[in-house]
């Protein structure tokens, strides 16, 4: 029987996936800002390639956080307060990134300031790219909660080996998303560089993904239970694998659109795999009795129903005009900002 709690588990997942796929390439490009962009013009092209869309992409995160607050307030409260300093780091990074992207062209006549914007763009992208995975790693492996569901560990306990491994798996996915998007949006030397980086990241992602899976077997074996109970679900990690290995072939055939889609599928199925492993839990506690689940951490059925109506009215509109804007900006990105 499918109930409202399951639907909202799924919808919060959709928002997180939407965020990771879309903002994933923004984060990847920012993290590789100095590796991809070798001169002023290339750097401008990179900023320009995400300029019109990054802000809309980030809204997936804001809406995801809002939906988590509304649907599973106990998870929102526990995770945001429990990971306090980590959350603050993500927050400051996102602030830096927003300012850097928006002001990069505004500081074009002040190179010193523009270089600072470049640095903020890089740090503001790299830190969240790593910490998102670290946060997921902790939620998956289990954190120490008190009777009121407050996290009682320290900031440095969050940087445990397993969480760091998952952080790296996440980072690798974002980097690949960044290079494959760059291939689509650029030409010439920049595109060539993005292609060779993609070729480089593909095996790295494969190795980290296998490493992450092995580490999960050691540190968080409960994550496999749902898969053993229902073998069909293994289709998702299988798609991750297929998408990964198709990338070199698609690159060879210059099917760059498909390369980007493959990379997006990797992110999508990685998150789905984790979601399936967690279900019906949302936060694993070191004491399993204190796990936050989609039932003990949720809002009432009335709130979940109202939210579902809001989502059903709003999200199709969002997807329609987002698609339209991507359509307007299809094709290669110029280095100079038009009109501004």
């Amino acid at each position, binding site marked *: 029987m499918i109930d409202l709690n399951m639907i909202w588990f799924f919808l919060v997942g959709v928002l997180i996936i939407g965020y990771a796929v879309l903002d994933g390439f923004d984060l990847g490009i920012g993290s590789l800002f100095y590796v991809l962009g070798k001169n002023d013009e290339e750097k401008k092209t990179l900023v320009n390639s995400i*300029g019109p869309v990054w802000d*809309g992409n980030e809204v997936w995160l804001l809406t995801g956080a809002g939906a988590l*607050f509304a649907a599973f307030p106990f998870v929102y409260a526990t995770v945001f307060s429990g990971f306090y300093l980590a959350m*603050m780091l993500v927050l400051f990074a996102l602030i830096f990134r927003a*300012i850097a992207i928006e002001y990069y062209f505004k500081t074009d006549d002040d190179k010193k300031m523009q270089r600072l914007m470049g640095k903020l763009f890089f740090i503001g992208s790299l830190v969240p790219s790593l910490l998102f995975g670290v946060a997921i790693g902790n939620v998956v492996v289990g954190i120490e909660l008190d009777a009121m569901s407050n996290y009682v560990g320290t900031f440095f306990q969050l940087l445990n080996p397993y969480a760091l491994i998952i952080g790296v798996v996440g980072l690798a996915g974002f980097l690949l998303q960044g290079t494959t998007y760059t291939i689509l949006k650029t030409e010439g030397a920049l595109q060539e560089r993005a292609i060779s980086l993609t070729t480089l990241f593909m095996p790295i992602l494969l190795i980290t993904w296998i490493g992450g899976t092995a580490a999960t077997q050691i540190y968080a074996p409960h994550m496999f239970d749902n898969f053993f109970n229902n073998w069909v679900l293994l289709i998702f990690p299988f798609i991750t694998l297929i998408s990964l290995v198709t990338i070199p072939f698609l690159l060879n055939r210059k099917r760059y659109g498909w390369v980007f889609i493959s990379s997006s599928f990797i992110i999508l199925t990685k998150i789905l795999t984790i979601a399936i492993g967690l279900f019906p839990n949302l936060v694993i506690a070191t004491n399993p009795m204190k796990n936050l689940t989609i039932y003990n951490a949720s809002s009432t059925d009335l709130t979940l129903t109202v939210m579902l109506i809001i989502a059903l009215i709003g999200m199709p509109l969002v997807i329609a005009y987002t698609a339209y804007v991507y359509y307007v900006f299809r094709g290669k990105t110029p280095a100079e900002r038009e009109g501004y």
Partner: protein
Amino acid sequence: MLDVLLLSRIQFTFTAVIHYLFVPLTIGLAVFIAYMEFKYWRTSNPLYDKMSRFWTKLFLINFAIGLATGITMEFQFGTNWAAYSRYVGDIFGAPLAAEGVFAFFLESTFIGLLVFGRNKISKGMRFFAALMIAVGTNLSAFWIIAANSWQQTPAGYAINNAMNRAELASFREAVFNPSTMVRYSHVVIGALITAAIFVIAISAYFLIKNKNVMLAKKSMQVAIVIGLVFTVLQGFSGHTHGALVGETQPEKLAAYEAHWETQERAPLLLFAIPDTANETNRFEIGIPGLLSYLTFSDFNASVTGLQEFAAEDRPPVTGNFYAFRIMVGLGIFMIAWMIYLSFQLRKGRLWDNHLALKVSLFILPMPFLANIFGWIVAEWGRQPWIVYGLLRTEDAVSHLSVAEVAISLTLFVTIYLFLLYLMIYLMQKEVRKFDMDKDIKTVIEDDKKEGVLG
């Protein structure tokens, strides 16, 4: 002593105050830009195109920081006010999520389209994009005010004692709680005034410097009309709001007015020195009966005093009393100034009245300060409650260490001051270097492009 509660309150106040320096200008300026795009679409007069382009430049500088500092607000409910989030999540979360779905996507997506895609889309589409930005920012304000109003005048809920939380009983009643619409209009009118005075100030600067004169005059005309209408409206809105507070949160109004004893023919104090320890005012000048009249439309009505409430349920008086007077004083001055400017404009004397132009530039901080003081009295006047009558602020804070919050607060102050510096630096640079004639080239190219496309 600095504890987690106090540090978290300081952090929330600081981040909210800085955030709200940017929000009203975004909301108000978006409406201005939509109007200019509309005129350009209908008249094809290149002056409107230039106006829209110029104000959009400034809009963007402002928007970027509003956006960046806005993420903080959404995160902070969870990071610093986890107990609050657990208590109200069933009600408070939905408006935040609705804000994301209905408003954030709209404004951010169409800002990308308008700014980067201006030369790729038709004039009509440009207007549509500008309109969607204005609709998005205004909707965003609506959902946030609905959520905040629920903290002031909770409605449409039931308390679940087993779960220790408030649960939704009626979404409509919770969203349209008794204060939502009154407060929403107060906020949006404030935003339009902020944008109007901003446009007037920058235009005045151009006129003083004798630069971009056509653009400045046209912009100023529009802004003076909007400014006049909405400052006057804000007078009525403020009055309605005050009366509503007297009805729904009587101790809040009493704190604004330093009104200690319940009395008939209650005076409106123009000035006083509140003495909280002795529950009286040491010195006061007031107009007898006016507070009764303003609150209940009756000079003889009885207005509840602070003494009716237990000391631990009273908001801080002195700060609220002065902050409220600053807000109202700024509001009255802005009404007067807009009336004066309108007369000068009508008589055709404004463009040569350099003193009036200089003063118009000089008063630029006023609407921003009025907005901030408005929020200070709204939130401070609700204390000691975080949700009026239901949850105390002291019971709402997260389980954190002093060190954690001290670190984050220090970083917030450092980073936000840097952002402020950056914003002011870019704004003044953009305004100083702007030369409207340089934009003509782009306009001609636009027309050519449209000619080719048919």
